[in-house]
């Protein structure tokens, strides 16, 4: 009888030793650490298949991200030209120089014009011969083929105001032709917008692909550990307990994929930087490729991790509940 009483006391001791919110929290944290470490160990234990999974995810993520980085660079490059729009007024050839200057002053005084610069035909020729490298050819001409020019910067922003201004100036008698240097910029902008949307659509599809790939990988992991799951459930493991290691497996695959993606983007930029520098030098531009940056790379890794978790969650939600002790 005394043995039984002892046993009863011992049982009470056992139940007391794991009550309280703090103990529960500690136990929960302990199992998270254990699951995270165990899953990482399992991922690293099969380096070849893990690297393949990482590569697949890395490529799928690097493609849209890389294209986006390229578009950012084009944006950056074209932002120098973006605004303000400029209207070139080519003056009639028979207009005298002082009449042309008066015209320029009248324009500069207008409220809807921020600035007007007069470029005489001689200045224009000098500038052209300097920039074009055709100095010798131009010097051999008998007559200066260029007209006088007034460069007008509209005061208001926006293409429509500039267009209206161009129409109006075209109608003035001093002007032979008024050209708005904005159309090609508008074309570029709409092309950029189109490209961004395409990248977004492709990116969306590839992200979906990544989630499905990860889901499938986790499904296979679940299948291969079916017996273990049954045993854990038999001895009282909850669904959350069984789920945890698989969620961490998804997280590790996703994070690794993000690291691979960031590396791939950095490698491609490095690969492209030499010819781009050369091209920029030819155009006398100081342009340099800008990459993802530390924050961009970090965001990519976090995105990978989130996708991994999502894929794992989908797989776990579908397949883990089906596995019950029979």
């Amino acid at each position, binding site marked *: 009888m005394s*043995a*039984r009483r*002892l*046993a*009863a006391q*011992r*049982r009470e001791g*056992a139940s007391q*030793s*794991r009550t309280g919110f703090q*103990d*529960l929290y*500690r*136990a*929960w944290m*302990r*199992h998270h650490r*254990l699951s995270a470490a165990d899953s990482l160990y399992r991922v690293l234990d099969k380096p070849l298949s893990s690297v393949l999974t990482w590569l697949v995810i890395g490529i799928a993520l690097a493609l849209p991200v890389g294209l986006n980085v390229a578009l950012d660079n084009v944006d950056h490059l074209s932002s120098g030209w973006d605004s303000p729009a400029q209207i070139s007024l080519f003056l009639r050839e028979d207009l005298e120089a002082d009449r042309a200057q008066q015209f320029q002053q009248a324009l500069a005084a207008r409220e809807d014009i921020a600035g007007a610069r007069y470029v005489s035909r001689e200045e224009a020729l000098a500038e052209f011969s300097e920039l074009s490298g055709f100095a010798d050819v131009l010097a051999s001409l008998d007559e200066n083929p260029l007209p006088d020019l007034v460069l007008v910067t509209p005061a208001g922003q926006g293409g429509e105001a500039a267009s209206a201004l161009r129409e109006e100036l075209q109608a003035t008698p001093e002007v032979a032709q008024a050209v708005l240097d904005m159309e090609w910029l508008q074309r570029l902008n709409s092309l950029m917008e189109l490209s961004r949307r395409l990248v977004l659509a492709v990116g969306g599809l590839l992200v979906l692909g990544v989630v499905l790939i990860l889901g499938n990988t986790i499904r296979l992991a679940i299948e291969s550990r079916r017996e*273990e799951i*049954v*045993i*854990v*459930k*038999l*001895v*009282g*493991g*909850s*669904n959350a*307990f069984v789920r945890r290691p698989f969620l961490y497996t998804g997280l590790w695959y996703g994070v690794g994929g993000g690291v691979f993606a960031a590396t791939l983007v950095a490698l491609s930029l490095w690969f492209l930087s030499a010819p781009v520098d050369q091209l920029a030098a030819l155009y006398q531009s100081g342009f340099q490729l800008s990459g993802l940056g530390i924050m961009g790379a970090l965001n990519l890794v976090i995105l990978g991790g989130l996708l991994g978790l999502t894929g794992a969650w989908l797989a776990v939600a579908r397949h883990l509940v089906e596995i*019950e*002790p*029979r």
Partner: protein
Amino acid sequence: MITFDRVSKRYDEGHDALREVSVDIDRDDLVFLTGHSGAGKSTLLRLIMLMDRPTRGQVTVDGRNLATVGSRAIPRHRRDIGVVFQNHQLLFDRPVFDNVALPLIIAGYDYQEVGRRVRAALDKVGLLERERAMPVTLSGGEQQRVGIARAVVGKPKILLADEPTGNLDPALSAEIMQLFEEFNRVGVTVLIASHDLALISRLRHRIITLREGRLVSGSAA
């Protein structure tokens, strides 16, 4: 401790595994459950650990009506019951220590406590020196003792065993039964399903006999 009140279990295929079974198992008792294979022994154990639900009737374990235990509460219910399986159900890719530690890890004990309790349980079944061994390197009897250590490591009030000596020779079987008697002596309610009548009738404990799902003897203590 365990009460079956007019419990019937009919499987989907129409097979009646249990018919109107009423039985009472007292706290701190050791009871054998016997009958031919297919008589309903396993079904009875499955109902206690909620691997199945009865079609009719009521099962009460440790004062709790199992019909009130929802599916989310099943893991907690199973943690209060130690179970020994005929086919051991060990994790073959983990050493003996990890197998025995599993219920404690699930319950969330800290590592020191886990180490202490696992070694105490392994000492009890005489496998203290094999804690780093992999289950495949152990004999059938040793594997069964690992299963027993795992079942008792969480100090459950109830210990169930489904044909624990099924594949063992008589000498080993007697040893295993002796272990169960020792646990019973320190206050664990033990229910052992076994068809080894020669062995269990020697042990002088209550014997419940099932035949084709009906209780034929041993309904009262």
